[in-house]
């Protein structure tokens, strides 16, 4: 039980680091890292639950999350590169200026 709580607390801290990154950083690459951290915190918690309590469905959800993360990574890099082409920067806040200019 203690081991599960250690995993749970580590997952929560990882989730908090990711959440901080998503809310405070303003360039696409670090936001992308932070999103992956959020997903990995959830996967860590699910894997730990599966190991300690025998919850097999948890692992299946973890695989689905990895599939979603792959799609998200592909879409994220696409947006990241196209934004860089259009604005010359990788800061999402500056996309508003492009809309205003148009």
């Amino acid at each position, binding site marked *: 039980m203690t081991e599960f709580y*250690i995993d749970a607390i580590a997952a929560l801290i990882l989730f908090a680091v990711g959440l901080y990154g998503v809310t405070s950083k303003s360039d696409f690459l670090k936001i992308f890292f932070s999103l992956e951290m959020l997903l990995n915190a959830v996967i860590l918690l699910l894997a730990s639950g599966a190991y300690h*309590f025998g919850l097999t469905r948890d692992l299946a959800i973890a695989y689905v999350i990895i599939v*979603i993360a792959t799609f998200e990574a592909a879409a994220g890099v696409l947006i990241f590169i196209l934004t860089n082409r259009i604005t010359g920067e990788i800061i999402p806040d500056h996309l508003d200026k492009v809309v205003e200019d148009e």
Partner: protein
Amino acid sequence: MSVLILAMVIILAVMSLAQTKTVPAVLAFISMMFLLGIYYILLDEKLLGLFQIFVYTGGIVVLTLFGVTVIGSKFPEFKIRPWAVAIVTVVLIGLMIVPFLIPVEAVHQTISLQQQVKVFTDNYSLIAVFMGVVAASVLYGSIRMLHTLKYGKE
């Protein structure tokens, strides 16, 4: 051992966000994902650990490196939003209280690889297809959005 790996994971996660140069940030991110994969293997979830290493350390990091080649070696300057710290503190405290309030009973049961694959194919393979359709829609929407940003409304 597990505490050491998890501590390293958190330190590397913070490092990847705190770096001002892109390549060390990506290296910290790779190491974090690799250590998580190793940890899953230690937890006896070999398939999940290998998935983690192949998908994250292999695939996603290559995509990220492709992005790094676009932006160069340094992150751009930005201003930190102060309310982010407040939000994270509130959410973290809230989330840390919840697991201790829920009573759980230990079962201690090892799951074989065949069982894992069977549960996935029986229950969640259709969801994977559905999520693929959703992801394709998001991808199409993103392309349309960027097209609109570039050329304006048609």
